[in-house]
Structure formats: C-alpha cells, structure tokens
C-alpha cells in the first residue's frame, strides 16, 4: 500500500512540475517523474507478497507455480517502457536544445505563437 502511495505522490510531483514550472527542463524532469510513477504503479499491479520469480523449473506443478510466481507481464511492459522512456528523454532534451537556440530562452510562457 505504501508503494501505491509513493506512486501517487510521484505522479503528483511530476504533474506539478509539468503544469506549474515555466522552465522547460523542469517540465522535462516532471514528465520523466510522471513516467516513473506510472512504471512503479504497473510493477505494483503484478507483484505478489513473498512471490517467487516467474521462472518455472522442470517438474514444478503448474497450479502451484501460478499461485506463487509474480505476474511477468507488467515487468515486461515496464522494461519496454523504461527503454522507450530513455529515447523520449533524449528527444525531449534535444528539442529543448533546439528551442533554446531558436528563442534564446527556456521560458515556456514566452512561446505562445499558437495563440488565437
């Protein structure tokens, strides 16, 4: 339960950074925190207290294995998500760099060319 609360707190921290902070790098950091909060939440969903690793040894009874092993699906999903997150982080940082070169500023509120 504590871990769910931690995920919720992390989500809140990340959203705060995204919504309130004007500095683009802080927004990037906020988004990364949101991402990890979601990862943590997904991992929690598949976890069983005191469970074993989802690797079935020869001769192990199927019903007992399913009862004891943690769910591997969220783990696989999160592993993929972390890798994608890495790429996303690189892309965001690169775009931030380009924005700085173009505007000479990282203040998101000064970039309002889509207005109206």
């Amino acid at each position, binding site marked *: 339960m504590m871990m769910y609360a931690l995920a919720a707190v992390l989500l809140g921290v990340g959203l705060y950074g*995204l919504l309130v902070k004007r500095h683009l790098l802080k927004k990037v950091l906020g988004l990364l925190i949101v991402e990890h909060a979601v990862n943590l939440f997904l991992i929690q969903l598949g976890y069983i207290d005191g469970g074993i690793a989802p690797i079935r040894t020869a001769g192990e009874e199927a019903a007992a294995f399913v009862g004891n092993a943690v769910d591997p699906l969220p783990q696989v999903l999160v592993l993929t998500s972390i890798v994608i997150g890495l790429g996303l982080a690189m892309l965001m940082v690169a775009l931030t760099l380009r924005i700085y070169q173009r505007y000479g500023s990282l203040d998101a509120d000064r970039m*309002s060319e889509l207005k109206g």
Partner: protein
Amino acid sequence: MDNLLLPIVIPGAVGLLVLFLPARMRALHLLLGIGGALATFGAGALLIDTRGAVSWPWMDLGGLQLDFALKMDAFSSWAVAFTGLMAVLTAAYGAGWFRGKGGAPGRYYAWLLLATAGACGVLLADNLLLLVLFWELVTLMLFLLAATGREEGAPGAAKAFGVLGLGDMALLVGVVLIGLDRTWSISELAASPLIADQASYVLMYVLLLVAAMAKAGAMPLHSWIPTMATGTHASVMAFLPGAVDKILGIYLLARISLDWFVPGDGLRLAVMTIGALTILGAVFMAMIQHDLRRLLSFHAVSQVGYMLLGIGTGTIIGVVGGLFHMLNNAIYKACLFLGAGSIERETGTMDLGRLGGLVRVMPLTFGAMFVAALAISGIPPLNGFASKWLIYEACVAAEMPLFLIAALFGSALTLASFVKVLHSVFWGPKPTEMDGVREGGGGIGMPLAMVTLAGLCILLGVFAAWPLDNYIGPAVGLEAGGAVTGAATLEGNPAAWSDVDGTEPVDRPYPLGTLEPLLLTGLLAVGVLVLLLLAHAGQMRMRRVRPVFVGGQPFDRDENRFPGTEFYRTVQDLPAVGPALRLGASGQLDPYEAAQRAGTPAVRVLRRLHSGLVRDYLFWCLLGIAVVIAVLIGS
C-alpha cells in the same frame, strides 16, 4: 477485371501516376494527362452499348453495407462517355494554358483525372455508400483544383468546399437513412422505389435534393460558384462547376426523382419552384455583373433552373428536356468559360469595362463564344433551343403557365446579358490597352477545345433527334420512335412519378412533342438565304462606316467608348427586383455568409481559449482524462 471498371480505373491510375512524377517532367505530365483523358473517353465510348452489373463484396461496417458494385444502364452509359469527352477537351485546353507559363501542370492533370474517375464512379455506382465515396472524391478534387496554382483561388475554394460539404453531409445522412430503412443496393432500390408520402421518406428525399442542388448549384446553394469563379482557372470552372458538377447533380436529381422515390405533387412543385426562381434570380444577378467570369458563373447557376424545372414537371418530355439541357449546358457553358479563359490569358483582365473590340484579333474565340452565347440564350437551331423547347412544352403539358413564363423570360434575359458580353468584349471600339492582343498564344489546344464545343452546339441542335432517340430517350425508358406516355421513369421503371397529362399513350408525330429540329433548321436556312438574296437584289448596303464626329475634336478611342458595363444598370432601380438584387449582392441571402455570421461569436470564444501556452493545453488534456476516468468509474 471487368470492363465496367475501366472508366474509373484508367483516370484514377493515370492521375495517381502523374501526381507522383517529378515536377520537371512537364512534357510527360501533359502527355499522360491528355492520354489518360483520351483513354477514359475511349473506354466510355466503347462501353456505351454495354449493359450490365458487377459486384464485389467489400466491407460491412456494422450494418452499413459497402460493396464495390457497379452498374451500367442506359442513363449512366452516355453520361460516362460525355464526362470523358469533357475531360479530354479540358486537358487539351490546359495544355495550351500552361504553355510558356509557370505553374504546375502535374497537379492540374492529376486532380483533373482523379475528378474524372470520381465522376465516372458516381455515374456507375450501384451501392449507395460507394456513390457517396466517389461523390466526396469529386468534391475534394474540386477544392484542390480550385486552389491549385493561384493565390486568389483560396477563398473561393474554401467556400466551395464549405457549401459542397454541407451538401455531401446531407447526401450521407440521406443515404444512410435509406440504407437502414430499405437497402444499400441502388438496383434493389430502383426496383421498388420509396413512395414519398410519409414524413420520413420526404425527409430522405429532401436531404438528397439538397445534395443535388448544392452540387449542381441551384439557388440558394449556388453561392460557391460565383465566388469560386473570381479566382479560379477558367478551365477548372469549365470542367467542374460548368460541366461535371452539373452532370452529377442532375444525375442524382433524376435518380432520386424518378428511380429511388415517387415524390408527391407538393415535392414536385417545390422542385419546379426552386427551378423557376433559380432561372430568374441568377439571370438578374448575371445582368449586372462587370466581371466576365462572374457573369458566366451566374449563368451556370441560372441554367440549372431549367433542368430542375424540366425534371420537376415529371412528364417524359420534361425529363428528357431536363437531361438534354444538362448535356447542352455542359457543352456551351464549358465553351464560354474556356473562351473567357483565352481572353484572360491574352489580355490579362476579365473586367468588361476594360475589354473591347477583340473580334478582329481573336476571331476563333469570338466565333466559339458567339455560337455558345446564342446556344445558351436558346436561339434556334442551336442545342440550347432544342432542350429549352422541350422544357417549354413540358410546362405547357403540366399546365403551369407561370413556370413557362419564367422559363421564356429567363431565356430572353440570358440573351440580353450576352448582348452585353459580346458588345463589351468583342464589339465596339478597341481601347488602346488592347492593341497588342493576339490570339493563339496557347498553341492549338485552346482553340481546338473551344471550336469542338461550338461545333457540338450546332450539331446537337441541328441533329437533336439523334441524341434524343438514341441516348436520352432510352435513359427514361423510351423506345426510339415509340409513343409517349405521360409518366416519366428511368429504364422503364413501372411505378415512378405520377402522370401529369394522363398515362394513356399520346399519339404525336414525333415522340418528343412538336420539336422537329431538321425542319426548323431547313426553314431558317431558307429564310436567311431569301434575306441575303433580297439584300443582294435590292443593292442593300449591309454596313456603313463613317468616322464619328465629336464636335471637331480629335477622336479619342478610349474616351469615346460605350463599355457594356452600363447596360442594364437600370435593372437595379426596378421596384421589386432592385432591392432583391442588392440584398443578393450584399451576401445577405447566402447561407455560407449567414453561417459565417452565426459562427463568428462562437469562434471568438474558442480563439480566446487558444492561449498558445503549453500548460493550458496540458490542463485541458488532464481535465479530459479526469472526465473519462470519472465516467468509467461511474458506469
């Protein structure tokens, strides 16, 4: 692979090929564009006697059944071939237009061929949803063609897309209502047409009628044509609003009025009233225009009224007249638009006040436009007369003298406004700024297209019995030389429109009323000959030229002109007509402008919401997610 696919697949494939060719292969673009159009016309002409249907199951969208079903009947056959012919002439004209100019022939030919494919698809479709798909394709290509190559085409293109989009939406809703109620197959629908006496069927009919009116350009959904005309290539105007959109709109109108529905007297009267009002309203607007292309575009609207009036009478003679008029209108209207395009290409202006005296320097353009102007005004023995005559007779047969008066008066005013055009453009003294103008800058393609169309005006007028007996008559189930029954149907459909002048066969010497074009032409020729002989015998001098006396001052060509723009200015001061014209010219009656006025406050609110700040958009996203989660948890 079935033959019926050819008129759709050939222009579609060639159009896509042209679209993806590199821009510098201009010669190949031209070759493929004209070749593709020629092949389409060839396919249509070869298939003109083919009858049959093919069908491939495509997809079932949860109750909406979309099959790739095609059907060629006596109506679609000649309409497809004629669409191909118009594509050929437009493509040939375009070759001249782009000669020695910049611009992108590739795009032009790609959109042109894809529009042809879409039009043939509409004419051949045997599934309601397939028809809507092809119909949309034509709308989209119209938008792209109107916006191609010219900056000033953009607002007209947007407006055309808006108004046609409304019509297309009505078509889609109407078609889905029919499909859910009865069937998705057009053949099955035609076998047992819907009797439009309940409110739901009347609603479906009206929705489809709106689509047909928007496409063909009947009032009050006509407003996109004049706006588009001011900024679009003349050849685009000739091909789409001038010819193909008329064919499609009137095709749909004829289908719904004769084949799919059995409309009651009230609906028929409504169609005829819209037709009569369109004839008169648009022709009055045309008379007071100063821009040649805009003037022609109001005539393109006005002529639709005749087709609506003819088909609205429901008599076989009226329907045949309406369909024949659709064909004739496409020919002479395309000729007039192409002529206007030639004039613009050589002089650089469409302002009737600045043009003048071009008859000597542009003889081919003058000849073609002269014939087409007489044809549109319904002067015998040209084709416009033949079809208008059938419509007049239909009004008599339907005992609707008011509509007859409207149609005759509309023709007279059409002639009046073309006297203005011919005077301002070709006759009268030539202003000095027109001195360097020469014909033929566009090579052979432009005059070829115009002269072909003008020749068709004469041929279809003198030999009007040939298309009527062989193509248009059979389309409404009329055997060549057969007797007339009062009620018109498509393909001899048993239970279409109620009879107007009795279902008993009427014994007439000619199956279509009293029109005898060959006799008429002969009498006219004799009359002209007699007149010439008399003039010759009496030593009558046909033409006298004297220098104009201006009080001893030197004669200044530019100052002493009588530009045609002053003609009919008094029309605007007539008691009832004047205020209506001013209202029309100000855009008060235009549904597009009305929607704009109503939509502006809403748009202003939305614009204020667009702060352009990332955090605001993020906030909206989160709010949306929160609502979705709340709904999911709640349910």
